[in-house]
C-alpha cells in the first residue's frame, strides 16, 4: 500500500513486520520517532514484542545482548552520542555473534552541539564487526531494515547489522512508501549457540592467547561470507517485491570518465549533479556506496574518482576516500562536505567534479583546495 511516511516511521513499520521478540531502546534526536512509534505499536497491542525501556544506550545494547543470546530476534535504534555510549557493548554483540539489528540515525558529535546529519558516529563503529549499510530514501530505509534481519540471522553471518539513515534529511523527510507483506521472507531465527533456557548456564569466556585470533578470524570469515548472503537476500527481495538493491547504486557509470562517490542522501542527490555534468559534456557517473561493511569491491579502473565524505578522521583524512584509495590503489579527489548537516546541493556536487584535483582534499565551505 502506498502512503507518505518519514524515514523514521518507515523503519518502525519494517520492524513491526519483522516481528522482533525484544526491542530495548533509549530515545535520542533525531531517532526518537522510531522508538516512540515502536513503543506505541507495543502498548496498543499491534506488536507482540517485549519493549524494554532502559536508562541509557549502554543498557539498551546490553539488554539486546542478553535477549539475543537466548536466541530471540532483537532490535534497537540510536544516534550519535547514544551510539558511542554503546560502543563497549557493540563490540560485545559482534564478538558474541549476536544478530542484533540496529538502526542508527546519523548525526554529528558534539561539541559544538549539533543534531544534524553526519556519518562520523557510525564510522567510529567501523571496526566493531557490525555490518553497515547506508540508505538514501524512505523506501530504501524500510526495505533495508526488513532485509537486515534476514542477513544478520543467516547462519553464515550471525553478526549484528547497523542500518544508517541521514539525520533529518532522511529520518524526518516524508516520501512515498510502499509497504509489503513479508510473508516468509525472513525465516524464523535459529541461533546455534543460544543459551538453553531450560537449563540456563554460561561459561566464563576467558580466551587464551593462542585461541583469540581464531575467534577474530571467524568474525572476518563471516564478514566475507556476508557479501554472498547480502547479494542473495537482495536478489530474493527483488524477486518477491520488485525493488532491486546492491552493494552500490550506479548511475551512468558505464562510459564515465569520472565517478562521484557518496553515501546516504548525498549519494542520491548526486545523480542530479551527474545529469547536469552530462549536459555540459562531462562524462560523469555516480556510485552511491550502500554497503560499507563488508566493503564492496568497486570497479573504478581507468576512472577518475571524486569522493564526498560526510565524516573525517583527524590527522588522516576523509574516511570513505581513504578506504577507496587503499582498496583500489587509486588516487581520489577527497571532498569533505555536509558535516553537521551542512547544506550541500546538486550544484555544489557538480562543482566538486568540475574543479577536481586528483590527490587533493577540499573542505567545502571551509577552505580553498588544499
Amino acid at each position, binding site marked *: 500500500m502506498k*502512503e*507518505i511516511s518519514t524515514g523514521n516511521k518507515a523503519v518502525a513499520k519494517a520492524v513491526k513486520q519483522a516481528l522482533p521478540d525484544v526491542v530495548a531502546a533509549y530515545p535520542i534526536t533525531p531517532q526518537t520517532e522510531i522508538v516512540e512509534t515502536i513503543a506505541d505499536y507495543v502498548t496498543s497491542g499491534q506488536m507482540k514484542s517485549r519493549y524494554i525501556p532502559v536508562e541509557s544506550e549502554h543498557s539498551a545494547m546490553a539488554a539486546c545482548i542478553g535477549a539475543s543470546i537466548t536466541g530471540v530476534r532483537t532490535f534497537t535504534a540510536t544516534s550519535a552520542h547514544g551510539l558511542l555510549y554503546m560502543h563497549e557493548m557493540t563490540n560485545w554483540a559482534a564478538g558474541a555473534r549476536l544478530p542484533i539489528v540496529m538502526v542508527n540515525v546519523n548525526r554529528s558529535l558534539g561539541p559544538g552541539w549539533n543534531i*544534524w546529519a553526519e556519518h562520523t558516529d557510525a564510522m567510529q563503529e567501523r571496526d566493531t564487526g557490525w555490518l553497515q549499510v547506508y540508505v538514501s530514501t524512505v523506501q530504501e530505509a524500510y526495505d533495508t531494515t526488513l532485509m537486515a534481519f534476514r542477513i544478520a540471522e543467516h547462519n553464515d553471518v550471525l553478526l549484528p547489522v547497523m542500518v544508517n539513515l541521514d539525520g533529518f534529511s532522511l529520518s524526518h*523527510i516524508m*516520501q*512515498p512508501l510502499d509497504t509489503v507483506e513479508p510473508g516468509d521472507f525472513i525465516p524464523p531465527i535459529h541461533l546455534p549457540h543460544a543459551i538453553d533456557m531450560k537449563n540456563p548456564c554460561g561459561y566464563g569466556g576467558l580466551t587464551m592467547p593462542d585461541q583469540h585470533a581464531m575467534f577474530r578470524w571467524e568474525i572476518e570469515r563471516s564478514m566475507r561470507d556476508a557479501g554472498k548472503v547480502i547479494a542473495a537476500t537482495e536478489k530474493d527481495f527483488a524477486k518477491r517485491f520488485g525493488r532491486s538493491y546492491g552493494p552500490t547504486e550506479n548511475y551512468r557509470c558505464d562510459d564515465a570518465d569520472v565517478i562521484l562517490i557518496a553515501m546516504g542522501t548525498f549519494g542520491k542527490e548526486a545523480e542530479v549533479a551527474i545529469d547536469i555534468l552530462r549536459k555540459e559534456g562531462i562524462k560523469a557517473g555516480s556510485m552511491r556506496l550502500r554497503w560499507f561493511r563488508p566493503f564492496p569491491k568497486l570497479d573504478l579502473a581507468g576512472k577518475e574518482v571524486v569522493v564526498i565524505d560526510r565524516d573525517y578522521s583527524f590527522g588522516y583524512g576523509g574516511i570513505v576516500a581513504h578506504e577507496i584509495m587503499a582498496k583500489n590503489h587509486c588516487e581520489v579527489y577527497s571532498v569533505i562536505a555536509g558535516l553537521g548537516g551542512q547544506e550541500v546541493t*546538486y550544484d555544489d556536487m557538480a562543482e566538486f567534479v568540475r574543479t577536481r584535483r586528483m590527490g587533493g582534499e577540499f573542505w567545502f565551505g571551509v577552505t580553498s583546495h588544499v
Partner: protein
Amino acid sequence: MFEIRIHSRGGQGGVTAARLLAMAALHDGKYATACPFYGAERRGAPVVSFVRIDDHPIKVYSQIRDPDLVVVLDASVMETVDVLHGLRKGGRVLINSAHRPVFAGYTTSNVDLTGIALKEKLVVAGNPILNTPVLGALAKMGIISVDSAKTAIREMFADERNVKAAETAYQEMNV
C-alpha cells in the same frame, strides 16, 4: 518539478500541511516529498517546510532555493521574513488573508483560512487549524485535485469539519 515553500509559525501545522499536500499529490499519481526545515525553532517562531511534486521519483534533498509557489499560512511572519526570497520569476503566492497584498512580478492569491477555521470551529488549544483548509485553496490553484485533497485529509483526520473547511476554502478562494 514543482517546488513549494510553506511559511508558518511553530505549532501552526505547517509541517502537517506539507505532509497533507504530499499525500494528496501521491493520490494524484505523482511523486512527492515533504520536509520541514528543522532548526532551533520554537513554538511561535517563523518556520518553513518544503514540498516537491513531480512526475518522476525525486532525488533532491537539499532545500528549495527557487520555489514555484510560496504559501504563507501566517501573514505576520512577513514582518521579519522575506517570504518572496528566491521565488521564481512569475511565481505564485498563496496567502492566508482576507486581503490580497500586491507583490510586483508575482501572481498572488488569497483566502481567509483563519476565518474559515473559526467559522467551522476548527480550533485546537486556542489555535485555528489552517493545514486542512489550505488544501482546498491549493486544489483551487490546480496544484492538487479536490478529490485527492479530501482523501488525504480523511486519511489523517476523522473530524469531517476538516473536509468542510477545505471545501469552503475552495469556494471562497480568490485565485
